[in-house]
């Protein structure tokens, strides 16, 4: 067994010094096409006609109503991705966007229920407080692992991942327990949000408000990363933590604050789910938007502007999944396959962009 695995060829990998923009973009597109081809092969193996699947996916992006629906899904994905772009910039592997979104949902629903049950807050303040609470709660949920990383060298990958589940079960607990709507016939749903707690202020459609919110956040993230001292420090921390230390950057402050911003923006994404898409809180309200956001960030190479179209694309995939399930009786997992396949091919593509691969026979010319 072990002998077999010692492949008689060595793969030599050299760093590329230069790559043109054209080549880089075409590699990305090539990986996308390859990803869909591989997905097609999987469909054929499962006895599904891949052309049907492709047709439904393209339909999502050509029909106005469905595209509109994709915009809606893109908003939480995009916000989570914007949050992640801050964390990834400083080389902080936050894979807890899902949990931070759940904390955002928890906080914004909490404000609504405080208002509905106790009437502590005037109507016009509700939305503002919801946003604030979602941002702070999501932010705190992420600054804890950031703090643990810088103070005690705790691996952030595992803590953020584990905290996703803690957040999800916490929301489950609230919804099956104290936050269940007393008038909801026992369904695990919170009370429906009143209109002023919903993100439908612009032209009566959530998609517009959401896109505006998304673009504003993207602009803000862009400005913070590019033009502020914090953004500069985040970048240095991301390049080398030792350099940052020698440069006299206050590491614990920068990393904790960066984590806070990252989780906060993801928390806002959670808010858009409950007060935009659903209009109330329910368990498992996010079908993995937080994980999709990781693909989105990598695909848009941390560029806040690119995140918007890329998340619309992935939002569209989610819509396509629902349609496939309804129209063709294909499991929703079909979308997950597309996502995973795109994910894998994109990372391999990134590798090819950075390195030149040469296959050399062992014992040959060294």
């Amino acid at each position, binding site marked *: 067994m072990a002998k077999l695995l010692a492949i008689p060829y060595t793969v030599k990998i050299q760093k590329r010094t230069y790559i043109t923009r054209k080549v880089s973009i075409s590699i990305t597109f090539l990986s996308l096409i390859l990803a869909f081809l591989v997905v097609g092969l999987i469909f054929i193996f*499962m006895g599904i006609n891949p052309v049907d699947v492709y047709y439904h996916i393209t339909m999502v992006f050509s029909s106005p109503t469905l595209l509109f629906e994709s915009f809606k899904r893109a908003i939480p994905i995009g916000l989570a991705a914007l949050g992640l772009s801050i964390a990834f910039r400083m080389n902080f592997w936050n894979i807890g966007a899902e949990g931070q979104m759940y904390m955002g949902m928890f906080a914004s629903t909490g404000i609504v229920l405080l208002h509905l049950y106790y009437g502590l807050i005037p109507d016009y303040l509700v939305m503002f407080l919801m946003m604030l609470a979602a941002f702070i709660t999501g932010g705190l949920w992420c600054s804890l692992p950031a703090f643990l990383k810088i103070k005690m060298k705790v691996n952030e990958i595992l803590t953020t991942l584990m905290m996703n589940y*803690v957040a999800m079960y*916490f929301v489950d607990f609230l919804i099956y327990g104290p936050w269940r709507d007393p008038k909801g016939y026992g369904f695990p749903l919170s009370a429906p949000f009143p209109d002023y707690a919903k993100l439908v202020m612009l032209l009566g459609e959530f998609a517009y408000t959401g896109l505006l919110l998304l673009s504003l956040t993207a602009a803000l993230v862009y400005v913070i990363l590019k033009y502020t001292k914090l953004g500069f420090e985040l970048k240095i921390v991301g390049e080398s933590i030792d350099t940052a230390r020698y440069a006299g950057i206050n590491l614990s402050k920068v990393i904790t604050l960066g984590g806070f911003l990252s989780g906060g923006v993801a928390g806002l994404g959670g808010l858009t789910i409950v007060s935009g898409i659903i209009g109330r809180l329910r368990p498992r309200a996010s079908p993995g938007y937080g994980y999709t956001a990781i693909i989105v960030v990598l695909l848009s190479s941390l560029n806040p502007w690119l995140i918007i179209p890329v998340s619309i694309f992935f939002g569209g995939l989610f819509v396509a999944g629902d349609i496939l399930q309804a129209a063709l009786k294909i499991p929703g997992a079909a979308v997950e396959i597309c996502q995973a396949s795109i994910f*894998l091919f994109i990372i391999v593509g990134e590798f090819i962009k950075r390195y030149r691969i040469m296959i050399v026979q062992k014992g040959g010319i060294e």
Partner: protein
Amino acid sequence: MSVEWIEQVLQLTVQMGTVYLLASLGEIYAERSGVLNLGLEGTMIMGAATSFIFSLAYGHFAAIIMSIIVGALMGFILSILVVDMKLNQVIVGLALTMLGIGLSGFITFPEIRKNLLLRLNPYLPQEILATQQSEKLPEIPIPLLSDIPILGKMFFSHNILVYFSLIASLIMWFILFKTSIGLTIRSVGENPSMADSLGVNVYLVRRVTVILSGAFASLAGAYFFIGFHPFWREEVTAGRGFIALALVILATWNPLRAILGAYLFGGVETFQYRLQLFGLGAQSPYFLAMLPYIVTIITLIIISTESIKKRLGAPASLGIPYSREE
């Protein structure tokens, strides 16, 4: 609380814990050699799906063998991407998990299942196609030993994979700490460039351990499905692969401690269901479900202290790809 009740709970604890134990055994080796296999959850669910389909098509033996092969294959893919291409272990692992969840999701639909089954075995009897119900692995009580009160039920009346998991953890502990192979694996995880200069093929060692972790994770999935809970639904493993990942840390990369940790987590989960049966604490299941994750976070914090880290032998270069300086 009668004796039967206690016996039943303990038996279920061990059966539930075996899922975590099997998955964590391979992962311990992978992490000891310096690779974090975050694709554990995806590999596990693929194992469950494979065992479902193959147990219907060709029976239990084929199901176990095939799920091991599928898991090894997923481990192989991960090893190419992570060890040879040095891609980010977190990202590749997550991608593989998504892939596993997506691929296994297909068989949720009976039509697709039927297509697959007929493709695998055209002579499949009609009644299996109609019911599509997997049989559970048979329990093999060990004579005499299984008659001991409490302990008999707890350790000696299970299916073959439970016994296997216990024997495997003993053997794997022995190999890891008492043989030169184990020393090699640990040295690769501790200081790969040193190991390389001593003539160890770092890439080969990591490739093998990652494939091993895939095979074990997949076997854990197969055990979970045909050995414990043979009813398919989408995302049937429900994040148990991530709990196994947590268990590896709780066990501080030691196969023997993994047994204790696995039964602890298994016990928590069994208790969760038992409490619900009693109607006790309608709120508590969610907090109990959080427990493994919270325990892990606390363990992570404790073992991240420099002195404790040294004493427990946490692999120093975990998650860092090795590339030879040329």
